């Protein structure tokens, strides 16, 4: 399986994602430059964490106009897998691929700490390998991670089992403890915690591997 990791000016978790996939998950990873429109035949596109375009205007607001995002949207519309991590999640909500928005943490502080998560559903390409009832320890590192959406949207997400991850102890004020959500078609997922930073014992946790293993398990080669 081939993963493409998008590199925006200001991305800083791109190498972490590349390392996690190629060293700890054992699959192919390639960088995709923000001004290109070629996804290099990636099966799953990762929008990594960081501060794309300096977080100018709003987190992810400028990245949604980058040339690569047009290709990512087409990939998603064709049923291709897309995972946004942290800033990548913010880009996915800004570009309308995922509902809701991410605003300043309730406590106003940037929080960098391991958090405990539960999977809201196992019915997705991002969560199918997570054992039932298992709590995952995965780090967060964000200042704008408070998930908000209209009541109607939150109800819909719950009814359709599209909440991919929930915080056990809500660190940032996210509505309904939401840490990650899926699109309607379940091929696009965004999450604020960093699974790529929890992929070997040296990192303090290997729980993030379950997210990547889910993707590998769900992937059906078409090419």
């Amino acid at each position, binding site marked *: 399986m081939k993963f493409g990791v998008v590199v925006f000016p200001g991305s800083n978790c791109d190498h972490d994602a590349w390392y996690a996939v190629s060293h700890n998950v054992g699959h192919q990873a390639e960088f995709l430059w923000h001004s290109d429109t070629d996804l290099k035949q990636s099966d799953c596109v990762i929008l990594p964490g960081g501060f794309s375009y300096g977080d100018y205007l709003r987190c992810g607001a400028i990245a949604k106009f980058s040339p690569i995002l047009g290709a990512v949207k087409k990939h998603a519309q064709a049923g291709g897998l897309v995972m946004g991590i942290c800033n990548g999640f913010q880009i996915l909500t800004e570009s309308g691929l995922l509902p809701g928005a991410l*605003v300043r943490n309730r406590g*106003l502080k940037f929080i960098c700490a391991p958090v405990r998560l539960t999977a809201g559903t196992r019915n997705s390409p991002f969560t199918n390998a997570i054992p039932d009832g298992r709590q995952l320890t995965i780090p967060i590192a964000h200042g704008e991670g408070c998930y908000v959406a209209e009541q109607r949207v939150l109800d819909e997400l719950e009814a359709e089992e599209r909440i991919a991850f929930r915080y056990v102890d809500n660190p940032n004020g996210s509505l309904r403890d939401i840490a990650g959500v899926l699109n309607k078609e379940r091929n696009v997922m965004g999450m604020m915690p960093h699974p790529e930073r929890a992929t070997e014992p040296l990192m303090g946790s290997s729980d993030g591997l379950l997210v990547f293993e889910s993707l590998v398990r769900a992937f059906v080669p078409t090419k």
Partner: protein
Amino acid sequence: MKAQIYVTLKKTVLDPQGATIARALQSMGHPEIAGVRQGKFFEIEIAEGTPKEALSAGLNRIAEDVLANPVIEEYRVEILD
């Protein structure tokens, strides 16, 4: 000609920065401050010779698509002479 665009969080979205500023003002001896909402202000320079009538639609689109995120924010566009 200039335009000004104000972007503010919707009333239903929590504004922890505004709340913190309000508390600071109250503790500085301004008990009359009941609340603060923080937002963004854009001052936009319009190229000379642009007809004023055509501006409004374009500026509203800019505000809707770029300057504000309609999921969480609202905006107001003003065109100045």
